[in-house]
């Protein structure tokens, strides 16, 4: 993982930024799909009802909290695994 020149590092950073935008768009898209699917089932009107917008808003909050929580867990688990792998490799 180490030993990148500054130019390589810059190239990598650019790609990672692109990846993050893409990643964010996927997460956002899944969130829209999920919350719409869970909250909207009435097609007698073409405007979201108060009940539907309320449900969507709560769904978004819950999804964000979920993502933040799973992000923390993931980081912890990943750090633990990486440490373990480096230990194995250095033997």
């Amino acid at each position, binding site marked *: 993982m180490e030993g990148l020149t500054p130019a390589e590092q810059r190239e990598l950073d650019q790609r990672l930024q*692109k990846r*993050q*935008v893409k*990643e*964010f*768009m996927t*997460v*956002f*898209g899944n*969130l*829209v*799909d999920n*919350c*719409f*699917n869970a*909250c*909207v*089932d009435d*097609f*007698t*009107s*073409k*405007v*979201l009802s108060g009940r*539907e*917008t309320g449900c*969507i*808003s709560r769904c*978004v*909050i819950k999804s*964000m909290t979920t*993502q*933040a929580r*799973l*992000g*923390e867990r*993931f*980081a912890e688990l990943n750090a633990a695994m990486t440490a373990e792998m480096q230990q194995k490799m250095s033997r």
Partner: protein
Amino acid sequence: MFGFGRPQPTSAEKIAAIENELKVVAEMHSRMIKVCSAKCLDKTYREGELSKGEAVCLDRCAAKFFEAHQIISDQLQKEGAARGFGGGM
């Protein structure tokens, strides 16, 4: 849809920004097709033509999906600014 507000964009950045914008739109379109087809179409396919009911349902679903997309986008921008959404990625 997402304003980035860069100072002086290069050629590649300008193209990437437009491409991205259009990608967001295209993805939203294909998600709408998926979601609204699932919500509105009779899956037995005994008929090849859309029934009146299915057609109306699709129109309303499209409008609601668009609205939902916008309110979620707005909400994320507000909450994201406050909470730092996406920091875990």
